[in-house]
């Protein structure tokens, strides 16, 4: 799941509407500009139905948990479905970059991956969402008109298209439907 400008409040409402029984791991890359990932986790945990933790290097993705990318690093998912970090140059002016996360996660999870692009003021995530679709995953994009900042969802739609294009309020219910057995 990726977001940028306006992402914090979007995430708060999305995470609040998730079914607490969701068995899948969730990973969030949000360009908040805040260096303090602990604070971000705490903030989101106050709204989320699922526990929110920092994504840690070499740790496996945990079922039923929301993992937040630390700032200043790219977050990647290895083929063995553990996290890796890198300090490679910024991608689309961002580190963490949603493209880097999506590309690597797409390879690790193939057609079992769902990628979500929310509000944001740059084009990060568009490439990665295309990779997710190419490898059989599902792409969900927030309706640009509904987003606090429409640039990112619009770029994702233009470049990758989407399987679902929805207002924010409809995204969590769809995830619940897609992810619960």
């Amino acid at each position, binding site marked *: 799941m990726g977001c940028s400008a306006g992402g914090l409040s979007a995430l708060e409402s999305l995470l609040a509407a998730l079914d607490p029984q969701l068995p899948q791991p969730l990973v969030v890359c949000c360009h908040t500009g805040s260096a303090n990932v602990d604070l971000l986790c705490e903030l989101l945990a106050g709204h989320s139905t699922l526990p929110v933790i920092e994504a840690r*290097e*070499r740790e496996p993705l945990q079922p039923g948990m929301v993992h937040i990318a*630390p700032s200043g690093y790219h977050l990647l998912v290895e083929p063995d479905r553990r996290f890796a970090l890198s300090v*490679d*140059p910024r991608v689309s002016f961002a580190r963490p970059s949603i493209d*880097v996360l999506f590309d690597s996660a797409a390879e*690790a999870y193939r057609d079992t991956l769902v990628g979500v692009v929310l509000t944001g003021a740059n084009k990060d995530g568009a490439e990665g969402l295309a990779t997710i679709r190419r490898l059989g995953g599902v792409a969900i994009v927030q309706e640009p008109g509904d987003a606090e900042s429409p640039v990112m969802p619009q770029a994702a739609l233009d470049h990758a298209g*989407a*399987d679902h294009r929805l207002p924010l309020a409809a995204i969590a219910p769809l995830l619940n439907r897609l992810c619960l057995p």
Partner: protein
Amino acid sequence: MKPDGRPAESVPDVALEDIEVELFVRALQLGHGYDFSQYSPASLKRRVLQLVQTQQTGTISELTARLLHEAGFLQTVLEGLSVPVSEMFRDPDVFRTLREQVFPLLASYPQINIWQAGCAHGQEVYSLAILLEEAGLYERTQIYATDFNESALRHAQEGIYPAKEAQLWSRNYLAAGGSHTLADYYSARYELIKLDQRLRRNVIFANHNLVTDEVFCEAHLVLCRNVLIYFSDPLQDRTLALFRDSLVRGGFLCLGTRESLDFAPSAADFVPVDTGLRIYRLGPRTPAGE
């Protein structure tokens, strides 16, 4: 909701790409003696694909072909795989803690050896030299700054950086407890800054590959930040053992602030000084055979 049409081209075979990466890594190893087989696959693949783009080879296999047949191409590849990204005083708290808690202990040694492994363009080398200078320790310190990327090492020796970095680095320097202003240590010309070359007087820059090269000094502090994040578990562990064997008893190790030691048995040899900042100290030797 009706899904948009998916792109028309056929599904590219990712498995095929993985085979190509593996052959590329084999070629690098058999042809040139550089072993990347134990780097973390996700980042490595990203960099290899980036090389395909910048070198416009179309496929990874073509990259491999050039690597094997074209003299001089190795250097291009190594530079593409190395990505020497760094900052001065990145994570200022780390440098502040080194200064406040580690330097006073280093001060008890008549001669201080520091190994900075994976020094990239030297930003952290100059950061260290400045702090040591301000702590009055630099005269008796020897810094070994190593990397396997020759051109990064040359860059590090020159100490020239884009001037637009200076603002952030100056803030970092002050947050790290610097007692002057960073501008006292560089001269600015056009769009560039050049670090005071006197800061280099006790630095030896050397090519050292953490994968294949051995212990070469007896260090009181090893600084190796954001290098092991690119290594798989066994290589991370092996490199930590190399650091352990290079350190004097009670010597210090400083890693990147988001690095995990949970999957490295060799980490048991180190005692945390500041867990959050990833500063450790070599504990008492464990009995042989352990």
